[in-house]
Structures are given as C-alpha cells and as structure tokens.
C-alpha cells in the first residue's frame, strides 16, 4: 500500500567507543531522517546498559565495502610468521643459554682463583 508521501528514512550505522583507550566499534543500525536525529537516538537504542564514551553515526550509503564475492580474498596464507611473535619463539631460550654460559664462566673463574 503506497501512500502519496512516503517517509522512508535513511539507514545510519552506529559506532561507539567504550572508553578513551578503546577503539570505535560498530553497534547496529537505525532509521532516521537525518544525522542529527540519528545521533540523538543512537545511544539509547543500542547502549542502554553498556558504557559509552563517544558516538558516531554514519549513513550506510556512505560506507564503501567489499562484495560478498570479494570478501574471501581477505584470507591469507599462513606463512607470515616473520610478522608475529610466534615467528621469534627461539629468542628466550637463546638468551637463557647466553646467561647460563656466562654464569658458568664466572663460577669457574672464581673457583680457579
């Protein structure tokens, strides 16, 4: 049933920050006629009990993203240990060896004197 004037509001995506050190996180979306109204309604719709330090609303049309077909391309090969701590798992034991060798030398020097 379409009436003569329709009020199809716009979709706004709501983002919020829990505290000053937290990153903005997406919450949900709401319908609003403009950004000011969207912002005044945002917290109460999605953060009635959670802490909220700051808020953004973004018109969904203004968000540019990947198609479903493109999303799988985000997957990576598991060959990038050089970027992660797990690629450097040998460091601790190597440092320990150096320390132990040094301490042994010290001990020998003392008993030798």
């Amino acid at each position, binding site marked *: 049933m379409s009436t003569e004037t329709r009020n199809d509001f716009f979709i706004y995506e709501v983002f919020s920050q829990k505290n000053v050190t937290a990153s903005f996180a997406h919450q949900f979306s709401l319908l609003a006629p403009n950004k000011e109204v969207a912002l005044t*309604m945002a917290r109460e*719709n999605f953060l009635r009990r959670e802490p909220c330090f700051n808020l953004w609303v973004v018109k969904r049309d203004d968000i540019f993203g990947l198609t479903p077909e493109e999303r799988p391309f985000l997957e990576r090969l598991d060959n990038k240990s050089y970027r992660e701590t797990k690629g450097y798992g040998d460091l601790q034991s190597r440092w320990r060896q150096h320390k132990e060798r040094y301490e042994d030398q010290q001990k020998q020097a003392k008993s030798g004197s």
Partner: protein
Amino acid sequence: MADMVRVETVEQAKQNQEYVQALADLLFQLADDDFILAYRGSEWLGLAPHIEEDVAFSSMSQDMMGHAVMFYEMLEALGLGKADDIAQLREAKDFRNAILVERKNGAGDYNDNPHYDWAYAIVRSYVYGLHKQVRLEALLQSSYVPLAQVSRKMLTEHRYHLMHWQVWLNQLANSTPDARHKLEAAISLVWEDAGELSDLGPNAEQIVRYGLIAGEELLRQKWLNETKEIFKKAGLNWPGEPGAASERGRAGEHTVDLEQAVATLSEVYRIDPAASW
C-alpha cells in the same frame, strides 16, 4: 542574606525545624515536578512517532523519574516517611508540582484512545528542561550540601536531555508549515502555564532566606533569557511573558488531570501499602 551558610548533613539540618520545613517545601517541588512529568512521559511508551525515538524518549522519562526518586529519598532521610509512601499515598492537594507538568499529553487516556500531541511533548519537555537546568545550577550553591551534591550528579544527565530536545525543537520549527503551526500552538499552550515554574511556593521567603536556592526573580530571568536565545536560534517568535494557570500547583491547588494521575500511579500500591510489592 542566608541565615545558615552551610548545612552538611541531615542531622545538622534537623537542629532547626524552620530550616527543615523550608528544605522539605523545596524538595517537594523538585521531586513532584520530575515525578509527574516523568509519569506523563511514561504514558508515551509505545506511542511515539518513530520506534527509535520511542526508545530514546523513554530513557529521558526514566532518568527524570530517577531524579525524583533521589529527591524523595532526601525527604525520607528528613523523616517525612518512606519514599514510596511520599510518592504514592499523598492526595493531589499535597503535591507541589507546577501545573505545567500535570497537564495530560493530549485527549484520551494512555490506554484508551490516546490522541497525544508530540509538539506539546517536545515544547513542554524542553521549556521545563531549560528551567530545570537553571534550577539545578542554582542548587549547586545551596546551603544544604547534600542537595548541591545530587544536583551536580543530575546536571550531566540533564544536559544530554537538553541536547535531544534542542534537535527536535529546531527540526520541527524548520520543516513543514504544518509542523510549524502545531509547534506554535504547543508553545501557546505551554506558555499559559510556564510562568509558574520559578514560583517557589508560599514558603518562598524562608527557602531563599536559608540559602537553599536563589530567588524566584533570578531563576525566572535566567530561564527566560536562555529560552529566548533558544527560540531565536530556532527562528521562533518570542511568545512574550509566560502566564500561569488559575490553580497554583506550588500551593497544592491542582487540576483534575493530577487527581487522575495520582489515582492511576498509586492504584496498585493502595491495594495494600503495607504489603511488599
């Protein structure tokens, strides 16, 4: 000027019966204003113009009722009875709210053919809210330290409400001719009662003498100046000096709207006030 500069605790207040009386008179005004307007707000639940706004609007009613509870608890601490009894067992004539906050949201009943007026809701909330802002700021200097402390807490939450009303007033004022017309009609209606907001009641002189809050004229001028500024920014005509209803709510004179409200809000509690609910 003020006879007592600083009263830190309930016990200290209780040493002067006149002080307690003045403090209680003021607290009833503060509590009843917030309580009754929050009650009117709660009647809007599920009926607001847009689902998202329904949710947002309800938070403000809850916050406002939360403020009323804090004031009622201060009355309880003064030995004037349980907060629940104070809120629900008094008769309409014992309420000290301004007439503006007790007016119905529109024709009909909240559960039976409500024909509620959103423009009136916005204007009443905002005009009351602007006055409340001035009042809370004045209370920061109150001689009764616990009152200054709760007022500071309320101010933060209240400023968030004002931001909300600001957006609504501005958008309705600058949208369709129909909305503009409805908004102006609502302003006229609110203006018939708004003058009573800064009335401190029959005991005003003592309230001010004990330094509980600034004088009526000061509150009124500050509030009118702020409101004038807001109206101007929204491009609205200044409606002139606000009037007051023929009943004086601050003196316990009320309309049938409050009688109905009190009957409704205490309906269950009155079945058995001694029971646990």
